[in-house]
């Protein structure tokens, strides 16, 4: 076998299985989802599936709730995760232990997280009990967490979600921080930079690829939040986009195609947001190098 000749082909042979797998088990269902969403049960072309969604007042609520959720949760989680990553990266005594502890929420299955917080935020749950044991509320002063306004409930979900997602973002940022060249940062201090200017002018720009990775993955998954909300509030209390997909698929018999149409809408929204993000953050230019 001619070595030079075969080399050219090797990578394609190696990645072929992945591509074939994607085509069969991802592209095919995606295409059929899109196609099915335009037909009714008698295989007649229709836009009714989409119209059902747009006419549902919950659609508007879902879009607004999802938008609020994404903006607030991504911002909050990113800032806290960055802070945490900077702390752990200091290599103080116990940093390894702190990392191990911080990884636990990331490892927990969403269902377990749901069980944990729904037992916590129930009126007779452990959060109120803890507050009582700490002497912060009286026995009759139980806080009714789950009956707040829609916005308050959404904030509660954001806090719960942050608890689980921050470690995930932190890991990506921490991995990036550990790969940075120490010389550049030290040089920054030598030239008289304060901690803050070094962070802003040297560390963060060098960390950009990790920040991009963390943010894009988080934005994609934040738009698709649902399980935690359903496990704590049930369906349709706080409608968000993907929760509505599951609601149409699972809870309403015979609305399968509406669910598909809904998921097409969700995907389009995710793609638009992602492309805008990648354009704005300049990830495309880097990718073409």
């Amino acid at each position, binding site marked *: 076998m001619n070595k030079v000749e075969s*080399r050219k082909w090797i990578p394609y042979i190696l990645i072929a299985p*992945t591509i074939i797998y994607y085509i069969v088990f991802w592209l095919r269902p995606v295409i059929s989802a899109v196609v099915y969403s335009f037909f009714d049960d008698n295989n007649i072309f229709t836009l009714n599936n989409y119209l059902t969604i747009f006419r549902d007042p919950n659609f508007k609520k879902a879009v607004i709730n999802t938008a609020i959720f994404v903006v607030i949760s991504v911002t909050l989680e990113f800032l806290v995760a960055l802070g945490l990553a900077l702390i752990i990266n200091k290599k103080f005594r116990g940093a390894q232990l702190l990392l*191990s502890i911080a990884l*636990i929420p990331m490892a927990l*299955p969403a269902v377990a997280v749901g069980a*944990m917080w729904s037992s916590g935020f129930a009126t007779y749950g452990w959060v109120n*009990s803890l507050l009582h044991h700490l002497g912060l509320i009286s026995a009759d002063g*139980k806080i009714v967490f789950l009956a707040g306004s829609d916005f308050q409930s959404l904030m509660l979900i954001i806090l719960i979600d942050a608890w689980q997602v921050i470690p995930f973002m932190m890991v990506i940022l921490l991995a990036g921080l550990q790969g940075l060249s120490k010389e550049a940062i030290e040089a920054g201090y030598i030239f008289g930079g304060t901690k803050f200017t070094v962070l802003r002018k040297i560390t963060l720009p060098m960390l950009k690829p990790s920040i991009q990775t963390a943010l894009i993955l988080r934005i994609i998954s934040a738009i698709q939040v649902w399980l935690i909300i359903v496990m704590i509030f049930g369906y349709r209390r706080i409608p968000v986009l993907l929760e509505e997909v599951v609601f149409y698929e699972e809870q309403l018999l015979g609305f399968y195609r509406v669910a598909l149409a809904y*998921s097409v809408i969700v995907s389009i929204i995710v793609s638009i947001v992602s492309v805008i993000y990648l354009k704005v953050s300049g990830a495309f230019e880097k990718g073409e190098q």
Partner: protein
Amino acid sequence: MKVAKIIRQTLFYIIVAGIVLVILTPIYFLVTISLMSDQEAYDWPTQMIPSFFNKFKLEIVDNEFLISVYSPAKKTYVTIKQSSNFEDLQKFVRNKTNSTIKKELFETQVKKLEKIIQENKDRIDLLRKERDKLKRQINRLTVETVRLKSQLEMAEKANMQEFIDMIKKQIEDNEQEKAELVKNLENVTAELDKIGAVHFSVAKNIFDNYINFFRVTSDALPALLRSVQVAVLTVIISLSIGGMAGYAFARYSFKGKNLLKLSVLFVRMFPGISIAMPMVIILINMGFYDKPIGLSLVYSVGQIGMTVWITASIFMGIPVELEEAAMIFGTTRRGAFFKVTLPLALPGLAASAMYAFIGSWSETAQAIVLTQFNPTFPVVVYQTLVGAKGLINLTAAGGVSLALPAVVFTMIIRKYILQMWGGVRV
């Protein structure tokens, strides 16, 4: 200068301790609740530590046994069941408190009780009458106070000062009288406890919820086995297919590489649950619907992308010079890979396998759509909570059993988690 440093350091460690507390407290309570009996879990406030013993009080009322359990939250005994049938009593107590009262123990306690009742018969009757009377009086006062308070509200609206003062005075008197009665009641009850009841404690089976979760939800054990099956199959599929691509990413540069990197993002953009819906039809045609293999085929879509990323960064960590050196000494490229690179990459690949395992082990959304009669373990836990079965301590036990393997595996691959995100980027 030195003081400032000490203060700064202390502050720093306080922040770190705060972070640790925020992370561990919810987990601590999840575990605690999973160890609690129904009686404890629904008591308010929930105790910080699960109990290991239950204190019981046994009385004989109207020729029937009356059994109560001590509630640390209420600091008093709570009645569980009145019955003349021991088996009935035992079953009820077990369900409610996770303690099994043995028959011999019960019989000795009954004998003891009969003896002390014999000794104090008249006094007990007197005290019981007194107790009932006090309870009635307290009730009457409570009702009276409520009525007075509503009158007070009306008077305040009408701004009748004299009347307001009068009602206020009356309420105060009422409360005073009530407090006295309550105190009397406490004394009477305490005395009754001493001469009319026996107390004993029984060890609590703290893992009862776990046993119950697997027994009551009949799906749980088969679901657990299915989850393992699905996860193992997913690991095999995604590691064999994704590992090859990962190697190509690490060692070669080729056209379309960046597009492929971004493809991981494309895959994530379409919600997993939406792929699962059309996949139902495809899997039915393949004969794989509601079977572990069908689930793992769908899970692998998400996991292959991750595996490509992880394995690529692992292979990049192994210098290509080692392979080249091996080839100089006469092996083929394939030989170099199997003799040099693969052994070095093995720990990293194992980590990647575990990561895929954790991912498919925890996956719930797609499993809800893709299973009908054969749910996976997370689906069973989800249904216990969202469905009408919902007992919080039972769900907690399910949640802990679900979380434990994932947490253990994550701790094992801790150092690789950092490595894999440091390698390949979007």
